[in-house]
């Protein structure tokens, strides 16, 4: 899978590519508008991460050029200007998603995965991880081909973990993913613990290996090892 990161803040594009490489993505970085435009026109990517405010141009123009050339690359806009107008303009131009800076890499990872799944595996809605199988269209989970009943939040949690498998996902990122930004201000993440405890219990009882590891006070890691 090839990803293009159009972002003029090198430290940030480095972080994004390091994080995504762990999921076996090949990351290409464009540090300015011209490079971005050139790469978008010259190559095909599975997903493009597009910053709007570039030093010498607007990411929206790159998006426009992409759509004029009838390219089907998935596009996620990442912008420091968390404004509704930017979001609406981007989505109207054909972007698939919008993420405001600053964001958690796990959130970005999940969104990239979701877009690639939608674009590339349009016939295949199943995510398999050993004995675990998630049908993202029907929103059901089965273990050893036997269905497991999960609540909506537990399902979202499991999907988030599989999208970020093998990597530590912080509690803050989980809280924001499941409850939105407003809940991030409540100070306590105790309620996440309850949901994870329930999810683990249900999966283990259904015969699934306990893939969710707790990482001290930091967060959780979904891993086979």
């Amino acid at each position: 899978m090839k990803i293009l990161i159009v972002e003029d803040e090198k430290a940030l594009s480095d972080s994004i590519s390091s994080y995504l490489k762990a999921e076996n993505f090949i990351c290409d970085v464009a540090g300015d508008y011209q490079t971005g435009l050139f790469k978008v026109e010259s190559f095909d990517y599975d997903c493009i991460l597009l910053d709007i405010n570039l030093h010498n141009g607007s990411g929206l123009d790159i998006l426009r050029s992409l759509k004029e050339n009838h390219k089907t690359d998935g596009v996620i806009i990442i912008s420091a200007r968390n404004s509704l107008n930017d979001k609406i303009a981007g989505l109207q131009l054909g972007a698939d998603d919008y993420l405001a800076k600053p964001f958690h890499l796990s959130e970005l990872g999940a969104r990239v995965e979701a877009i690639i799944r939608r674009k590339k595996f349009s016939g295949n809605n199943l995510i398999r991880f050993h004995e675990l199988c998630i049908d993202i269209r029907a929103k059901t989970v089965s273990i050893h081909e036997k269905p497991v009943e999960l609540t909506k939040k537990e399902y979202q949690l499991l999907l988030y973990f599989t999208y970020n498998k093998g990597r530590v996902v912080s509690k803050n990122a989980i809280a924001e993913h499941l409850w939105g930004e407003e809940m991030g201000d409540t100070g306590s993440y105790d309620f996440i613990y309850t949901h994870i405890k329930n999810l683990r219990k249900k999966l283990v009882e259904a015969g699934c290996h306990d893939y969710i590891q707790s990482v001290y006070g930091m967060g959780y890691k979904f891993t086979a090892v």
Partner: protein
Amino acid sequence: MKLFTRYSRINFAATTAVLVAGSIIFYFIIHYVLIRQLDETLKVEEAEILDFVSKRDSLPPPANYKDQHVRFYASDKPVKRGFFSSIMYDTVENEKQIFRVLRFPINADHKTYIATVSKSQVETEDLLFLMVLITIGIIVLLLFFQFIINRLLVKKMWRPFHHTLQTIKQFTVTNQEEVVLPATNIDEFTQLNNALNLMTEKMRNDYVSLKSFADTASHEMQTPLAVINSKLDLLIQDQSLDEKQTKQLAAMYDAVGRLRKLNQSLLLITKIENQQFLQTSRVNLRKLIENKLIQLEELIVARHLNISTDLADVSISINPYLADILLNNLLTNAIRHNTDNGTIIILLQQQSLSVRNTGHPLGFDASRLFDRFRKDNASEGVGLGLAIVKQICDSSGFTIQYRYDNGQHIFTIDW
């Protein structure tokens, strides 16, 4: 006291004092002059009598004509010559009158006599009285006209000042319209208006630059925050971290999270101030509150709170995004500043929404509750939640009130 009233009072007192003092001095001068004139007449009479005596060595006959009397008395003792005023019986007018008298000694026929020449002072007094009357009349007229002129003219002259005052009262720094003060031909008012124009212009410019500073600063902070956040996201992937390091990382992670939240809240406030949420639509508050309560369920359950609601089917015109934040902040506030096993009562009526929750009394003045960064020491939030609520209410034309009653914090919003 009005400046004009104060000025008129002083002016009135000063004018009156000067006029009265002037009149008194005037009275005495006129009185002196008239008496001197009278005395001159008496001296002429004296000279005539002395002339008569020196030629004939006998007294002329006493005479009473008009208001003038000449009399002679035999006397042993000599008298000094002198003028005086005296009240005497006037045989002509048949009444007591005031007379000016000249008494002088006279020798005739080897005898000493006292001669008195007197003349009625009444006319003089009458003249004097008339003059005083005219003076008083002039004083009264002068004061009266001064009063009228002040009344009519001063009011007119102060009009530009009152106009300026009215304009300045209506001035708000958030309103970007230029302040227009009327031109006037009074120097002081022109100076005042010029100074005010400069001042308001500067205030508006300062406000705009301050606002754009806050906006730009918050935006510029987003990228470094994104970098720190992403680096932390990568750092926590490191397998070789021990427990102690991870805990330190977690603390950093939380701090960055709070910084992000703070920055987003500041940006939100700036956007509301900049009126970037002008688009409104009909929002069904009942549905919104019910959805919010579902969203916040975990928090409510975690604190074992008892929620009771009485929600009318109310739709109001508001920006949907702001409505969501408004309710979110109000409800999370009611959850966070509650006691375990406490209650939240939400009452939605056609014209108002009230949210009341059990909780400890505020540790600070209630009037400062909606101030930015105002929070209890125990609070883990950034202290902008209620400031945002207030800002949304202000920009949407709602009023919000807070009171603490019977162990409950009560927020009421009217629209």
